[in-house]
């Protein structure tokens, strides 16, 4: 028995939309099998993961908090991956962005007023952009592989954050805990419906940014250039598109979204800077981008789905005692099956039984 691929004459439109759904379903089946091996009732576990968290209002609020950074970075990474810039360092860009966004309330706590939050957001985006510009610069100037440099910078960013929070930025009134001072109300993103839950306007910002990136990608010349450079660098060269400029554009756009995500995280949910900003949102955003078909609108849906895996992981740990590590496995499975199903877009897949000559005769 073997698999045989035959190229379709044109990419299947149906499969473009169907393949993430098939992939997601297969990941659920694989997840159910995983729960069986862990000795947990699979259906109950899936319920705890994917239904329970959205059956209560406060919990939906938590979902939106987790979805905001995923949607932002997922949408930003769409631009990177569509233009063939393999930025896998969004996690680091988010950390540096979160730090840059915190600089104002941590270093100048006496500076207060309605200007604080907008400035924090600008600083946060600039921080993420600048950090993302490093792999872009190394790629364009020295032809250094951006996959490796952007990833290495994640580890460096984690160390910078750790040092800063334990060292110069530690809360002077904080009993030596590794955390900065708490931000005052002007430095916080307000909650949307404080009566019902904690969700803040960061989610709205994320949706707006994702839509803006979608407009950029589908309605502007810039978006067209991104796609051409990604699909065919040679054609882009003949058209006179500047590939080096595009590397910077894609990286810095993704860096800005990551910096914004970091700022929303510190100014929204936590309200201070801690030694860890993110439980791996920057890496999960890679899954978001692919599950969302490298389309910023798709990233909104995919961001909500993956936020659910984070939330479900926490819920399932409490209700049925599944390790929260299972959530990471789920996320990996989702990306795996989605990528596998993407084959259906470009190829027809046939299973061939018996030897090759017999199959040819049958065909």
């Amino acid at each position: 028995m073997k698999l045989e691929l035959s190229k379709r004459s044109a990419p299947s439109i149906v499969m473009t939309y169907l393949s993430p759904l098939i992939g997601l379903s297969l990941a659920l089946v694989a997840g159910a099998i995983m729960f069986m091996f862990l000795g947990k009732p699979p259906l109950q576990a899936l319920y705890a993961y994917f239904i329970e968290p959205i059956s209560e209002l406060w919990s939906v609020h938590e979902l939106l908090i987790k979805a905001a950074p995923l949607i932002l970075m997922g949408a930003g990474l769409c631009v990177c991956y569509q233009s063939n810039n393999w930025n896998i360092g969004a996690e680091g860009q988010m950390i540096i962005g979160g730090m840059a966004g915190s600089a104002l309330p941590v270093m100048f706590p006496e500076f207060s007023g309605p200007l604080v939050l907008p400035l924090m957001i600008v600083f946060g985006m600039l921080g993420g952009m600048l950090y993302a510009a490093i792999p872009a610069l190394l790629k364009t100037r020295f032809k250094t592989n951006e996959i490796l440099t952007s990833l290495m910078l994640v580890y460096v960013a984690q160390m910078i954050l750790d040092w800063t929070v334990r060292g110069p930025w530690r809360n002077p009134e904080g009993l030596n805990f590794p955390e900065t001072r708490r931000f005052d109300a002007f430095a916080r993103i307000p909650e949307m419906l404080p009566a019902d839950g904690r969700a803040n306007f960061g989610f709205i910002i994320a949706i707006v940014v994702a839509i803006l990136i979608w407009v950029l990608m589908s309605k502007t010349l810039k978006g067209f250039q991104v796609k051409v450079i990604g699909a065919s660098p040679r054609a882009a060269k003949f058209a006179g598109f500047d590939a080096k400029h595009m590397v910077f554009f894609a990286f810095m756009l993704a860096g800005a979204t990551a910096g914004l995500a970091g700022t929303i995280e510190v100014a929204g949910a936590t309200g201070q800077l801690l030694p860890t900003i993110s439980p791996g949102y920057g890496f999960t955003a890679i899954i978001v981008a692919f599950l969302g078909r490298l389309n910023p609108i798709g990233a909104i849906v995919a961001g909500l789905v993956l936020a659910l895996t984070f939330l479900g992981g926490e819920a399932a740990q409490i209700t049925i005692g599944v390790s929260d590590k299972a959530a990471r496995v789920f996320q990996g499975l989702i990306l795996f099956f989605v990528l596998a199903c993407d084959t259906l877009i470009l190829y027809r897949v046939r299973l061939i039984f018996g030897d090759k000559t017999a199959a040819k005769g049958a065909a």
Partner: protein
Amino acid sequence: MGLTEAILLTIATAATPLLLAAIGELVVERSGVLNLGVEGMMIMGAVGGFGAAALTGNPWIGVIAAVAFGALTSLAFAFLTLSLAANQVATGLALTILGLGLSGLLGEPFIGKAGVKLPSLDLPFLTDIPLIGPLIFGQDPIFYVSIALIFGVTWFLFRTRHGLTLRSIGDNHVSAHALGIPVLRYRYLAVMFGGACAGLAGGHLSLVYTPQWVENMSAGRGWIALALVVFASWRPARVLAGAYLFGAVSIGQLHAQALGVAIPSQFLTALPYLATIIVLVLISQNIRMTLINTPAMLGRAFVPDR
């Protein structure tokens, strides 16, 4: 044992997992496949090796399990990228995410458990020779495997027919296919060899380097191994040099931390990652060298026509 000896020994211990993972990936990339999942395969090898050794009490069974876990993990990558022609970069990332998650889940019962350490070689008299004795005759068994693999892979790639075939596939899979070479079969075997090596590297981490299970204990070594392959411009002997250079950097920063150098420990910990970036920048300067040795088909999917 003097301090110099101790430092040299620990450099070898730190370099061995990098060397193993990099030499495996080198063979994979020579066949034209880019597997970015080294980190995932390595951590699966680490948890498999630790688990098997802890359950049976036999570190050798741990070593075998580490190799098997690495190879099996790589099979998932091979199926997607070779049989289904999926994007190699994305699938490699998926393998890393999945490996880190799955190893965390599988390793949960082993957190805080005492590990089983693979004993070092101890030859009577020979190991007692000052300085070179422990360095040459007193290392852990996986160290010798890693050195043997450098010679073995060099011989295989450049002195055997199969090695030549493998390299030709990496340089032009369409021509190789036209000549009747089973491209995908070679690539499957290459990917599994890379997985086995990464798994063994993980086993070295959890059975020799620090015989315990810690989540994410590979700490980016899989990525550094990937960088080493680029650094070595796909030549096995240079992988050896690169791995020991990085081993020296990471041991150097540990000693600097222990001595209380007036640099924050976080910056010293970040040093190997920064060194990777700097080395990559320097090596990318030599474009001629890179062009000659880079497998032309690296990262490109191949679908055989009928």
